[in-house]
């Protein structure tokens, strides 16, 4: 064996990797679940293209005039057929050629039908040679970065960084304690700091896969923008993950059963799931709650991630968020080391 493979820090870290990859549920929750969530929410809140309105006309000439407008899909049909199609909802409006002009048959209470009436009338008038009195121009808004999915992706990223760090640290440390493995390790000459360091090393390596996989997917499928610098985004992810590792260590520092650990983890994460603005802006909470909401590490993390990705902020503009994350990291770690139960 090489010198590296013989080192205890390497062995401890590689054991963490092996145990993680041999746990299919963990892989699902950390790598697959956030992507599924993004896909689900992305579909539910997608920005739909304007619907094409189905209309009918009694002559080929009228149909032709209507088809010129891209907002309409026109078909030629007899008046009887058209009335039936209206009744069954296949078309919204029927244009009937009459000796002295055109008559529109539609349901006035249906907003789509009223829109169809206006669009169809404009198309037929234009085809008949009507000139606009005022010259107008349309400016269409399709800007990426203002859609719900763009808002959602940094939120889900923050949530995922929290979950993987706290679950990843919490469950395996408490399981080792419950199964007396921790006690056995302490009875060996293992340097204790290496045990904790192995968790951080494996977490940071997994972080690369987790973040690149999720953001790559969001970029390719939804075209989510990256307006800030990528290395700064990476740094924010590392800082976020380390803060939550430290919190996870604190949660796992005393518990001796998985049930107790599980309850503690939910207790720590639940307020942040609700308050930290994963799915909607945290500013919606009343002003009296804002100091609490702002002090939560997940709020700081998500604010910083959104600032980087959506507004192109640099780290200099995010010092407050970074200070909050760093404070949680140091305070939680210091307490955890002091009260950690090795057996």
């Amino acid at each position: 064996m090489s010198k590296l493979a013989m080192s205890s820090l390497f062995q401890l870290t590689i054991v963490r990797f092996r145990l993680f990859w041999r746990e299919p549920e963990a892989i699902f929750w950390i790598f697959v679940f956030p992507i599924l969530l993004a896909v689900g929410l992305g579909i539910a809140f997608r920005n739909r293209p304007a619907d094409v309105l189905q209309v009918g006309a009694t002559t080929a000439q009228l149909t032709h005039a209507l088809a010129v407008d891209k907002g309409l899909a026109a078909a030629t049909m007899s008046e009887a057929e058209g009335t039936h199609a209206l009744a069954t909802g296949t078309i919204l409006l029927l244009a009937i050629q009459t000796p002295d002009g055109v008559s529109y048959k539609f349901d006035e209470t249906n907003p789509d039908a009223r829109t169809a009436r206006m669009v169809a009338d404009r198309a037929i008038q234009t085809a008949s040679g009507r000139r606009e009195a005022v010259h107008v121009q349309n400016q269409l808004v399709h800007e990426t970065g203002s859609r719900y999915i763009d808002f959602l992706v940094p939120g889900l990223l923050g949530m995922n960084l929290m979950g993987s760090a706290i679950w990843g640290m919490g469950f395996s440390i408490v399981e080792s304690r419950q199964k007396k493995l921790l006690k056995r390790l302490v009875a060996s000459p293992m340097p204790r700091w290496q045990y904790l360091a192995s968790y951080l090393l494996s977490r940071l390596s997994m972080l690369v896969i987790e973040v690149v996989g999720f953001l790559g997917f969001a970029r390719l499928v939804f075209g989510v923008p990256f307006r800030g610098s990528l290395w700064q985004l990476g740094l924010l992810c590392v800082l976020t993950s380390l803060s939550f590792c430290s919190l996870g260590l604190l949660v796992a520092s005393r518990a001796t059963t998985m049930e107790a650990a599980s309850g503690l983890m939910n207790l720590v994460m639940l307020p942040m799931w609700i308050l930290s603005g994963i799915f909607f802006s945290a500013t919606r909470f009343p002003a009296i709650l804002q100091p609490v909401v702002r002090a939560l590490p997940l709020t700081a993390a998500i604010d910083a991630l959104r600032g980087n990705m959506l507004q192109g902020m640099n780290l200099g503009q995010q010092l407050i968020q970074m200070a909050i994350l760093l404070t949680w990291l140091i305070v939680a770690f210091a307490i955890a080391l002091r009260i950690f139960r090795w057996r």
Partner: protein
Amino acid sequence: MQANGRPTQSNGPSLLLCGLRKSFADVVAVDGLDLEVTRGECFGLLGPNGAGKTTTIEICEGLTAPDAGTVELLGLTWSTGENQLRQRIGIQLQETQFPDKLTVDETLCLFRSFFHHGISVEESIRTAQLEEKRHARVGTLSGGQKQRLAMACALVGDPELLFLDEPTTGLDPQARRHLWDLVDGLKQAGRTIILTTHYMDEAERLCDRVAIMDHGRIIALDSPEKLIASIGGEHIVEFAITDKNGSDGVVDPALLTAIAGVESHRVDAGVHQLSVRELHTTVPLIFASLSAHGLHLSEFRTHSATLEDVFVGLTGRNLRDE
């Protein structure tokens, strides 16, 4: 396999305990213990559950701090020589569960990496006779195999002093014998072994000396042979007799205890029990004496006295009663 020849601090005892005390809440687990274990010895702490064996061994292992008293291992103490001591001792704890999803090989590689010196992973697998299970996940091992893995993890650092806490508890008879053979091999390599057990046969089979513990104290300390001899006679002779007419025979106890080599006598449900020093000289005398009085044997058997008999003699309780 050989215990390594690293220089030791002194040639003094492997383990020296003085005035050890430990209480948990209002329970006194260890109540003033003095003990000396010499190098190369296989020493057993024997006692019922709750006697304080595990607390004692965990204090020796530096996992529990005593309330009072001193612990010295290989001439070192835990407060000043912890790092060095951890490198030089091997520990097997009760009920360690190694991760189910690691293989035997991977688990041993991990433990080997903690030690500066030691035997190879291959050698530890061979010693523990786990060759066939080398690439098997720990979760698929039987109880005996898991226990041998725990033993292998205690051995990878080639320890001078080995602690085994109830190494065979919960194993089936075959797995126990297998583990005993393993310990025999380790004894021959010249290591000092300190083990706890509540099986008397295990202590008799493995240990050079045994301390019998009860309520946190050592109530007897000697080699198994001498402990057994201390109750007078290493063998128990049991027999029933009939007279000429075939009905139950009657014999004067004084007649039996007068036979040379008989230490004591008691009758239990018509069966006479004699504790006897040497079977080969005393049994012919018993036969001769009974026959001279016209009595016939209807039953006759002998068994060796055990540490169980010693424990009963000392405490009036059975080891298993607890």
